[in-house]
């Protein structure tokens, strides 16, 4: 089996550039091992036992319907992955806490489904965000944090702050209350 097309499918376990680089290095190491085994034993490619590979590489092979026992498949996959390493779109996603792998898989699944299938995500940590996330792409900065939500709802927040509490009179505008204080009767 050869790679299905020039656009390989990345598993969600490959989140960012680091995971892709690790995958490339592992595939290169596999190629070296298989080539040396072929030269050393003189066996055919399909007769050589495939060494133990990582789950991620197994997922890549499975998703792309590639048999890594054949050299041309490995070379094609390696070329495609290196091309991805150079050309794949990238984004930086920051959270208030270190996200768990399952959480990141869900997020990356959504991003690759709705944004781009080869999107590589770098995860950052910004404790000041509080809640939500901050997405930084090539040219834009999408602040989807709680602070940004509060800033967008500032008028609503001020309105709620000035609303009367049950059993109390309405809270006046602080500026007006200072400038022209009303003397209680």
């Amino acid at each position, binding site marked *: 089996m050869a790679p299905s097309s020039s656009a390989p499918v990345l598993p969600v376990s490959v989140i960012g550039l680091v995971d892709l680089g690790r995958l490339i290095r592992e595939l290169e190491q596999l190629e070296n091992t298989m080539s040396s085994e072929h030269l050393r034993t003189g066996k055919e490619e399909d007769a050589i036992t495939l060494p133990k590979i990582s789950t991620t590489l197994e997922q890549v092979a499975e998703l792309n319907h590639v048999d890594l026992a054949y050299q041309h498949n490995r070379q094609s996959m390696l070329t495609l992955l290196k091309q991805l390493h150079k050309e794949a*779109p990238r*984004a930086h996603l920051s*959270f*208030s*806490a270190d*996200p*768990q792998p*399952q*959480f990141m898989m*869900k*997020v990356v699944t*959504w*991003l690759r489904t*709705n*944004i*781009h299938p080869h*999107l590589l995500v770098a995860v950052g940590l910004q404790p*000041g965000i*509080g*809640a*939500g*996330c901050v*997405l930084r*792409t*090539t*040219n*834009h900065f*999408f602040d*989807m944090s*709680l*602070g940004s939500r*509060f*800033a967008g709802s*500032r008028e609503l*927040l*001020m309105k709620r*702050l000035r609303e009367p509490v049950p059993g109390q009179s309405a809270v006046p505008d*602080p*500026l007006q209350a*200072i*400038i022209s204080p009303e003397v209680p009767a």
Partner: protein
Amino acid sequence: MTIWQLALIIGSLLAATLAFIWLAVRMSYGPTKKKQDASDIEKAAEEDVEHIFNDDFREELRNRGRLHFEKIISENAMFLQQDLRLTTSQLNEYMKNEITRNLQEEFAKYEQSINDAKQLAVDSIQKTNSAIDEQRQLLGQEVQKQILAEKQQLVERFEQNMTDIVNHYVLAAIGDQIDLNDQLEYILADLEANREAIIQDIMHGA
């Protein structure tokens, strides 16, 4: 005019001249004789006085005069002593009155000076008090204005930083309890809301 007439006139003139000369000589010799007579009388009187007022009589008169003089002296001394005492007492009284009067005048002046100084001090204190009140009022107004401005700035700053304050409060209150898994739906909703913009930037970005 005949010569007789001329001789008669000259004769008259000569007669008048001779009469004048005789009269002058007569008047010059008259007083000398009177003076000589008076001198003779004085000499006779002096001789009589010398005869009457001889040395004994003069000594007696001198003694009597000395006694009388001593008597007069003693009387006058007594009178003088009385006068002196009276004068001394009067002088004392006068001095006392004068000193009292001067002291009273000085005290009055001193009291007047004290009253003037007191009035001056009171006026000065009143002016100072009024100035202090005025300054205090101005200072109070200024402080009140500054406080109002400061409060206004605080309120404006509070309203400007309201989102940060609330965010900080929320993070401090429940920041540890917000799990990322609980936020997944919220995060995906935000990503969905910005999907087109993200796609545009990724597709057409450099």
